[in-house]
């Protein structure tokens, strides 16, 4: 058991910086309210170091608190489909040649009304992102990038048409949980068509966690900082497993 607490400048001093708005006027009473609120979160100590009026009935606070709560670091289980163990592009291709023996087909799109192409392009397009080539550049893969604003229906139809192994869904806008609606609809559609097992389903986007994606019925989810290598590694390993 490894007890871990926030660190300011001394082990276990528990120092945390906070900032927030309260719907009350700025002033001594507001500052005291802010302090009490921070204490109500279990902080032992709180100094409100700054306050400012945002509007007649709104005010802004910066505070530092000192917590005594801790977590057992050993018990923490990281659940990100992370870059740590990913193969490089060359390794992935080698892996396909050795374990799959044919080209792996992937289809990707940014679905619904989401118009953010940059993320899915980063994963799929030739040039890739941050010195990681995209899937289109993988000689042992066939990658189809349908772009943005693609309806789920159309994406699935296309995947069936090209006999895809994996479908990549990008969701960037999360306001009002649109991403959850879109992703849920996608899986439900697949299931309704009896196609869910035919494809490896990969979700991605800056606010998509692996946990969330799996909960919604995808095989995996990738967040900010994902690269084509990570996706390719997951897909080919999963595919080899499936066969």
């Amino acid at each position, binding site marked *: 058991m490894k007890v871990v607490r926030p660190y300011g400048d001394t082990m276990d001093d528990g120092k945390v910086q906070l900032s927030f708005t309260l719907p009350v006027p700025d002033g001594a009473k507001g500052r005291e309210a802010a302090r009490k609120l921070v204490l109500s979160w279990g902080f032992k100590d709180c100094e409100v170091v700054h306050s400012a009026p*945002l*509007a007649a009935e709104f005010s802004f606070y910066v505070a530092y608190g000192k917590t005594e709560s801790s977590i057992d670091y050993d018990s923490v289980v990281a659940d990100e489909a992370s870059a740590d163990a990913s193969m490089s592009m060359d390794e992935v291709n080698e892996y396909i040649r050795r374990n799959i023996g044919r080209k792996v087909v992937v289809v990707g799109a940014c679905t619904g*009304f989401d*118009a953010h192409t940059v993320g899915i392009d980063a994963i799929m397009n030739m040039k890739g992102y941050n010195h990681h080539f995209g899937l289109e550049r993988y000689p042992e893969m066939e990658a189809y990038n349908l772009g943005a604003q693609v309806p789920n229906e159309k994406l699935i139809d296309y995947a069936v048409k090209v006999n895809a192994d994996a479908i990549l869904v990008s969701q960037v806008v999360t*306001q*009002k949980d649109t991403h959850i609606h879109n992703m849920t609809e996608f899986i439900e559609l697949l299931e309704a068509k009896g196609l869910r097992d035919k494809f490896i389903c990969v979700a991605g986007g800056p606010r998509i966690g692996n946990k969330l994606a799996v909960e919604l019925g995808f095989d995996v989810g990738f967040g900010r900082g994902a690269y084509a290598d990570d996706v390719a590694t997951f897909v080919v390993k999963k595919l080899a497993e499936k066969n």
Partner: protein
Amino acid sequence: MNSKLNLPADRVAYARELAERITAPVQDFIDGHSSVTVERATLRLAGADGASPDGVPVANLVVDRIRAADPAALEDGATVRYVNALLKSGGDVRALNDRIAAGFDVTSLPLGDRAAIEAKADEIVAGTLARIKGNREFREGKLEQWKGRNNSPLLYLIVATGNIYEDVKQAAAAAEQGADVIAVIRTTAQSLLDYVPYGATTEGFGGTYATQENFRIMRAALDEVAEKQRRYIRLTNYASGLCMPEIAAMGAVERLDMMLNDSMYGILFRDINMYRTFVDQMFSRMLNSYAGVIINTGEDNYLTTSDAYEKAYTVLASQLLNERFGFRAGMPSNLLGLGHAFEMDPTLKNGFMYELAEAQMAREIFPDCPLKYMPPTKHMSGDIFKGTEMNTLFNFVSKATNQGIHLLGMLTEAIHTPFMMDRYLAVENARYVMNYVDGFYDDVEFKKDGIVVSRAHQVLRETIEFLEHVEKTGMFDAIEQGLFAEMKRPKDGGKGFEGLVKKGPAYYNPFEKALKRELGIVR
């Protein structure tokens, strides 16, 4: 203003000439066409308001029924049918709209006396134009009355709660904090709707529906704050999209002050059909010109889609094209809020110098335009402290190059739509920096062959090469081939193609005619 960059005037003139040549065939196309939304915009200006019980706007009902009755009938324009019905039904616009909303079909009435229709139309046009002109005069009056009380550049903040009533609170707070311009961000994908929703709305995704009622509510709220602050607060909304002319019409009538309105944004970034977009932007810009509405163009989108350093020339190219399309729609330079953005990679060595160069270049090439400068967004991350620093340098460049409209950067850009405190921090940042670096613009010169000067010359050169290529290719083919923003858009693909209308020999549009006359557009 004396030049700090020493850009060759003849090359700048040549670039403008290329833009002129590139847009000429497009204009030929535009002149021969209308679209469903141009017709609906005209109907709206003529009085078509309201919506059916299931939410279809009266303007759409009219156009759809005309088309349904005879697929070719729109060739003559929709207004003649509406005015005809109006005359025949006693001249009460409200009553007519209610009837249409309830199911009445204007095509069911035979066309009456042409002269009477035209006379009635002229009367309506005169009334509407007077209202728009009144708005314009009101705005000018207030700006004069409260002269010197706005920031320079104008501080521009967005609200995006999705609920017009929450928007109003946030907008008022933002204005109290110091914003000069409030933009109500439009709900995700409204640009893809081929109609404008009706009434006040409280549910949007990443923004609030642009509706005429929402415009009215926000306008009233901002006028109220303005009186308190003794500072005119400008209101902005988004036109570009499938309803560009209609939204411009609504904005003109409700006294919006700025309108996002790019001649190619819809094509490239929303996959809207190119012909449709070109036709729509012309009519919407004539309206904005007449209403004194500053348009904001979307050059920033090129830089978020591609690399900002490598594709800097696409910004200047787009500015020149937007300028030319603007001129063709009778728009004076002082309404051309051409866009650009601070979007270079924060790890790029000398990045600040390049940003400075490009912002200064825009300033010098478009000396009379109220340039709209956009903040860093693409390279923002969850690191709100780094974000604050990037915004600080962005604010710096904006003041240091004397930009006109300054979109405030949010430290939480990569995280969520702005919290109230995010907006406050943005205003505070800009005010601190702009007051502190004030004087830079007049005080600082750049070395003749230094980084700044060379960069500007380089971007100008690349722009000219690009425009030459586009000219040779032809605009429509260039878009199809993906020369712009690395997006390939087929000529007959994209949304809204079916809404394009070829003007027939009897095409009648009294507003178009009046606007062209008022704006002195001859071609």
